[in-house]
């Protein structure tokens, strides 16, 4: 793309949250997407519940700020602050566990009620490697003992279409379809809801006027570098 040479693609940050029942593979999907890694019987990673990953599209770069649940979903105690202002959500269920789809539907309803109106939601059925159609045709341990699938593609897909959700079946274990989910979300984020990353791009000026009164607490303690009162 010669016309883009030298002109860096506009880059925007997008807050993406993960929702779904515990143990469906939310953290594993992020680990696969961000580090292309997978850990069997993964312990929750301490201190890491905020990751970033870029997604390069032909005309722009989306920088996902990925918020993991930090385990607060385990006893149904996720804080609303967590999904406030999210521009994208990955609602994950486990293909081998029907109750996890019920839970996923609750989350979709909650997002439609509480989240920003333009939010892009992807419904993701994870652990495809445990089913007979594991995507890459590769057999797995589970296949030896038969197909563990308990939620049909048909059922989930119909629901996703009714609610206008993106829909994917993935395996965080093999990596099947994982990047595709994030790319599809990046493509679906409406141009208008994109905040240009701080300092980049001219359209940021208008946005920053509205942000005028926002304060950056991490900035220097006292701008006047004065001790005592501002006299």
């Amino acid at each position: 793309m010669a016309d883009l040479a030298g002109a860096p693609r506009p880059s925007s940050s997008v807050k993406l949250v993960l929702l779904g029942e515990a143990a469906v593979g939310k953290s594993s999907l992020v680990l696969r997407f961000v580090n292309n890694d997978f850990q069997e019987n993964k312990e929750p990673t301490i201190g890491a519940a905020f990751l970033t990953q870029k997604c390069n599209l032909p005309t722009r770069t989306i920088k996902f700020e990925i918020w993991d649940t930090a385990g607060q979903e385990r006893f149904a105690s996720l804080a609303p602050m967590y999904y406030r202002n999210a521009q994208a959500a990955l609602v994950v269920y486990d293909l081998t566990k029907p109750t996890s789809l019920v839970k996923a539907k609750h989350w979709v309803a909650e997002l439609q009620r509480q989240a920003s109106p333009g939010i892009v939601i992807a419904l993701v059925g994870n652990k495809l490697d445990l089913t007979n159609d594991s995507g890459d045709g590769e057999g797995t341990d589970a296949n030896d003992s038969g197909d563990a699938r308990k939620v049909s593609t048909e059922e989930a897909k119909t629901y996703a279409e009714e609610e206008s959700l993106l829909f994917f079946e993935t395996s965080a274990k093999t990596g099947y379809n994982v990047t595709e989910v994030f790319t599809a979300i990046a493509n679906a984020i409406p141009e208008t809801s994109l905040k240009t990353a701080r300092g980049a791009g001219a359209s940021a000026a208008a946005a920053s006027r509205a942000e005028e009164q926002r304060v950056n607490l991490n900035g220097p303690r006292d701008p006047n570098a004065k001790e005592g009162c501002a006299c």
Partner: protein
Amino acid sequence: MDEIAPEYDVIVLGTGLTECILSGVLSVKGKKVLHIDRNDHYGADAASVNLEVLFKKYGNYAKGTEPWKQYGRLNDWNIDLVPKFLMSSGELTNILVSTDVTRYLEFKQVAGSYVQQGSGPRATVAKVPSDAGEALRSPLMGIFEKRRMKGFIEWVGSFNVKDTATHKGLDINTCTMKEVYDKFGLETTTKDFIGHAMALYPNDAYIDLKGGAVEAIDRIRLYGNSVARYGKSPYIYPLYGLGELPQGFARLSAIYGGTYMLNTTVDELVYEDGKAVGIKATMTGVDPEMTFETKAKMILGDPSYFPGKVRVVGHVLRAICVLKHPLASTNDADSCQLIIPQSQVGRKNDIYIACVSSAHNVCPKGYWIAIVSTIAETAANHHLELAPGLERLGRIEEQFMGSPIPLYEPLEDGTRDKIFISKSYDASSHFESTTDDVRDIYRRLAGEELVVEGLREGIQVADE
């Protein structure tokens, strides 16, 4: 559902701000924390709620009607139950920055800090002067008093407790603030706004306190430094309301391994030899209900979880009001604090008005939320006690005022029974007393001072 561990280092009861900060700090320090709340939401008494919840909490509507429906989208309302602002150079700001909880929250300035002089229709409401220049322009003082005030502010700025040359010949460590005021020849009305709207003392007890001058000067400097930081007022406020603060610290705790359970009632505190060693509890809202028992080396929580272990030290009167206009004489501020010093209206305790609006995403456009509060001084007629504050609001669309809210304090310090109880959120207009309580509880339970600077360094996992 996951299993609850048989034992934790600490069980925390209630998800108010004090509890969530402590939970976060303890988790970061490697303690295994179980954090419980009986409610279905975070925040306990420090929550922000929508109008429907507020109407239902106060019950001030006719059965069968739904008055909240005339006020736009419910989700646009985040009304604080306890009104407070953060001092931008205060301790809570410091804790937020040191723990990186700022990452989850956004703050905006509060547009103005005002004080009332006089009472009734002849009262003056004016910006609190925070530097020498503002002092000279202020309508609060006559021409000669302005000069004296300018001299005082400049002196506070250059004051150094370790340098006697800056002490104006006073024995600063033993003298009273009255002696300091007298040194500058300040008038009573000026002392009033300095002590109440800058040093933020709720009453006049500080004036004659022997050795109290240094603290008063420190408080005035905190005010000045906080104004200097962002310019408009010393206060900042989180978008979507104060309820975001406990949620932010709860997330910090969870990230460092803390376990969260809302909707969970404590059925029994379990003791051995007079020491708390665990709890029996039930989590509802799940099918079937989950009853469990777990142990802990210590238990901390808010007063509501320990009815026999706290005493009432006072009552707060509070009226939450919905307006369709900004406060008069505040330059149409989208947010402000207005302090009515006690002596101006013949009281012993100040009246505070905290006002926020859609600028901070706490209500739809076109609305303002003003919360009027004070410490109760009488046994009845509470609306009369708040009247000087309510008078400042003009037309009120909705008013929520319940019975006086008791302020609780623990009877013991917790070292004997391993139960560490926080204080109720007091009537003060900012969070400095809350962070004092956090430090005090931490000292009691950990046997050391809490140092938040650098808390997450070295254990933080990289972003990218």
